[in-house]
Every structure is written in C-alpha cells, then in structure tokens.
C-alpha cells in the first residue's frame, strides 16, 4: 500500500533522514518508535508532502507522492494528525471537523464522517460549538484524530498521540486507534511510548539518528534485548 524507498531529507544543510525505507500493507497497524529527534516526525511529514525528499521515492497504491503537494496527497487518501495536534484554536469543534472534510469527495460524505467521529469520541459531539482552543489536551488530541478521519483516509498517520497526556486518557485514545484500524483503515503510528505502541502494532520500525535501526514483529521487538535495554528500561 505505502512504500517509502530509501529517502534522504534535509532541513537546509542539515540532513535529517538517511536512506529511510519502510512499508505499510493494507489494513496494517505499523509503528515508528525511537527517541526524541530521531526523525520519526520527519518521516511522516515527508510522506504527507510537507517536506520534499532529496533522494528516494514515496509510492502509495502505485502513485508516486514525493513531488505532489500536500492537498493532493490528502485527496489520494493519506491523512496526518500532526505532532502537538495543530488544531484551529479560534474555530469551533464543528468547524475544525468541517475543515477536515475539505476535499470534494470527503465533503460529500461528511455526514457519515461526522457520525463516525462522534461515535468514536462522544465528547466532541457534546461540545461541538465550543472553541477548540478551550479544550483540554486529551480532547484536543481526540479532535485532531477526528479531523484527520474526516478526509476519509485509507492510511491514517498519527504523530505522537500520547504526548503530554495522562495515562488513563492515553489508554482510551489507543483503544480508539485500535477500533479505527479494525474498521479497515491502515495506520502508521509514531510513538515515544514504546511499550504501548508495540502492544498495539503488528510490526514496528526503530528510528535512530535519521536511519532505520531495526524492524520486526511488535511481539519479537518487545522481547528483543536491545529494545528492552534502550526503550523499555527493563534490560
């Protein structure tokens, strides 16, 4: 479904990614794990078209994405819920979700999408007139995921949905992520919370200093001595 082939990405003169390759198959939940600043967000932002790779390619269902503008990539079915959520603070929850369904196709289907998002996150429905900036961190995260779903993605990318949230809320959000995946949407999950991510994902890639440092089944990575040592604190 998604194929990232050996991409190099730069911020000005600084090289952030070195020959990163990864794959996501239809219906999968794949996780990118690794330390802060390892380049996880850079990978998903490149797939979304916010950054343009200097080398390599990104292919989604047979279409090359790496030269396409972001709004085309959204139209093709890839949606990113960005790090730090990026909600529109002065707009209401309803308007945030409406803007999420901006592409013509998703706009036609928006009544269904509203129903789906409100079922997953009932709290958004009860507060739909409220300005998004007044929501708590957890609610803002729910809104960001909901907004990303409004474009009817085939692949949903979530950048650190657990960041800064209380453990109880993280559990709730991860349950919803699993539900979304079970409904048929493939998911690429970026997480620093490694045990939680590996508990949810079927496969995972370890990102280290802008390179893929390892990959495998989530279960086997959980038992891997190196992973335990570096990320789980149980080695």
């Amino acid at each position, binding site marked *: 479904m998604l194929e990232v082939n050996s991409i190099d990405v730069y911020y000005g003169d600084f090289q952030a990614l070195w020959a990163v390759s990864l794959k996501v198959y239809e219906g999968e939940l794949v996780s990118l794990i690794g330390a802060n600043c390892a380049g996880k967000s850079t990978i998903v932002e490149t797939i*979304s*078209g*916010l950054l343009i790779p200097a080398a390599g390619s990104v292919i989604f269902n047979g279409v090359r994405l790496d030269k396409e*503008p*972001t*709004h085309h990539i*959204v*139209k093709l079915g890839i*949606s*990113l819920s*960005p790090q730090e959520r*990026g*909600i*529109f*603070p*002065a*707009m209401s929850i309803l*308007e945030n979700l*409406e*803007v*999420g369904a*901006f*592409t013509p196709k*998703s*706009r036609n289907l928006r009544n269904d999408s509203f129903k789906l998002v409100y079922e997953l996150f009932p709290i958004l429905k009860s507060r739909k007139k409220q300005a998004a900036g007044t929501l708590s961190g957890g609610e803002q995260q729910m809104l960001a995921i909901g*907004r*990303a779903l*409004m*474009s009817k993605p085939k692949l949903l990318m979530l950048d650190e949905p657990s960041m800064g949230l209380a453990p109880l809320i993280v559990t709730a959000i991860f349950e919803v992520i699993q539900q979304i995946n079970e409904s048929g949407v493939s998911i690429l999950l970026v997480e620093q919370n490694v045990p939680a991510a590996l508990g949810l994902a079927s496969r995972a890639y370890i990102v280290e200093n802008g390179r893929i440092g390892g990959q495998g089944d989530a279960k086997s990575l959980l038992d891997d001595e190196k992973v335990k040592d570096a990320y789980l604190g149980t080695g």
Partner: protein
Amino acid sequence: MTVELVAQTIVNGIHVGALYGLVAVGLSLIFGVMKILNIAHGEFLMVGGYVAFWVFDLYDTDPFLSLPLVAIAMFLLGAGSYKLLFSGLAKFHEESKMENSLLVGFGLFLVFPQITRMLWTTDERAITPAYSGGSLPILGVRLAYVPLGALLVALVVILALHLLLTKTYFGKSVRATTQNWKSAKLAGINVERTYLITFGLGVAIAGVAGVFVGLIHAINPDIGIGWTLKALIVVVLAGIGSIGGAFFAGLILGVVEAVGAIFMGPYTVALGLVIFLLIMIFRPRGLFGKA
C-alpha cells in the same frame, strides 16, 4: 449652533472613518492570513480610483455602477501581483517572509505611481457625477450623498466579507490557514490558492475604497503611501484578526481626527501617529485583537 457643529463634525468623521476602515480591512485580511505586510496597499487603492475615473470619464458610467467592475479588475490585478511577486515568499519562515514582503511592497510603491503618471499625468483627478455636491439636511446636519453612499457600500462589503469568512467552506479554509497553515494543508486545503484569492480580495477592497477617495476627495499618483499609513494606524489600533474590529477602529480614527481638527488645525495629522504610539506602548495587541 455648537450642538450642530459637534454633530456635523462627528458625521464628517464617520464618513472619513468608513474609508479608513475599508482600506484597513483589506490590509488586515492580507496580513492576518499570509503574514505579508503589503506596503503597496495604498497604491492599489490609487489604481482603483483611476480605473473608476477612467470608466467615468470615457464611458460616462456612474461610479456606483462601475464599482463591481472596479472590484473585479482590482481582484485580478491583486491576484496577478501575488502570483508574480509575492508567491515566491511563501516558502520562507514567518519573519523573513515579512521582511521580504516589505521589499516587494516598496518596489510596487515605486512602480505603480510611475506607471500612473505615464497613463494619467500628475494632475489631480476627481470623479464628479451630477449629484456629487448634494446633501440631505437632517436636523441641521448635512448628510452629503456621496459619503453616505460610501458608508453604506462599506457596511455591505464588511458584512459580505464577514459572511464569506464564517459561513462558506472557502471562508473556513481562510480562517484555518490563518490559524495553522500546516494543519490547513494536512486537511487538504490548497493553501497557495487560498493565499492567491485572499490577496485578490484584499486588493479589491482597497480598489473599492479608491473609488470613494476619487469621489469624495481627489486622486493623484502619489496618494497611495498616505493611505497605506492610515491603514497601518487603523490595523494597529484594532489589532490583527478582527474584520469588524478593523472597520470600527477606522471609524474611531475618523471621528478623532475630525474632532481634533477643530482644536489642532493643521496638526491633526499627528493625532493618528500619537494614537499609534500610545497603542504600541499600552496595548500592543490592539483594541480588538486576540492576545
């Protein structure tokens, strides 16, 4: 007598202020959405005035009737200028984008008056339909037709803009882009196209204001920078992010200047700058701006 004088002064102030507000709304819209400070905003106003003057002089078309035509022509000029000159700035970070947009604006500030001089000479031009001197006397206060019409048109423009921004999908995309352009892109909005249309809209509003400047005062190739400065003062007074606020701040400046003129005569021009300084010192986010 004095009551009537005060009332007349306030009415005059509102008339001028409506123009200030209209000009400022365009500037504020462009700055708010794309963080471009368009120093050439007043130049677009000047060109709009000349377009209406031309249509009036050559085809004898009433300036109120040619308003839509001026608005469309100025929209195209604005969108074209954006595509040619400003769109390259989009890739810069916010701060260098601001600085570079100032340079482009200054370039236009040099080019537009020169072209205007070549096309229409440096003569003062005024649009003078038959009714331009007429007024409606109410309780001893004279309501001149043309400024009254300008006030009404300004209100309609502001209301239409407000509805566009709050009720339509396009308007929501503009507000989303203002608040977080990255998320707007991720929602599938063509941010570059949103910028293009917004710039065109801001310039069209400046052009409409230019028509009224030509009707109420007069236009010449060098009036642009003065109106840019007025618009800047109003935007600072209002704060960024409120269309209605910018218009209301324009009315405030108009009335303050009109009342000030009674006491200060020729020094009235300084009043706006004093307000500018006071706001900068005591309330940098403006009267209606969000923190």
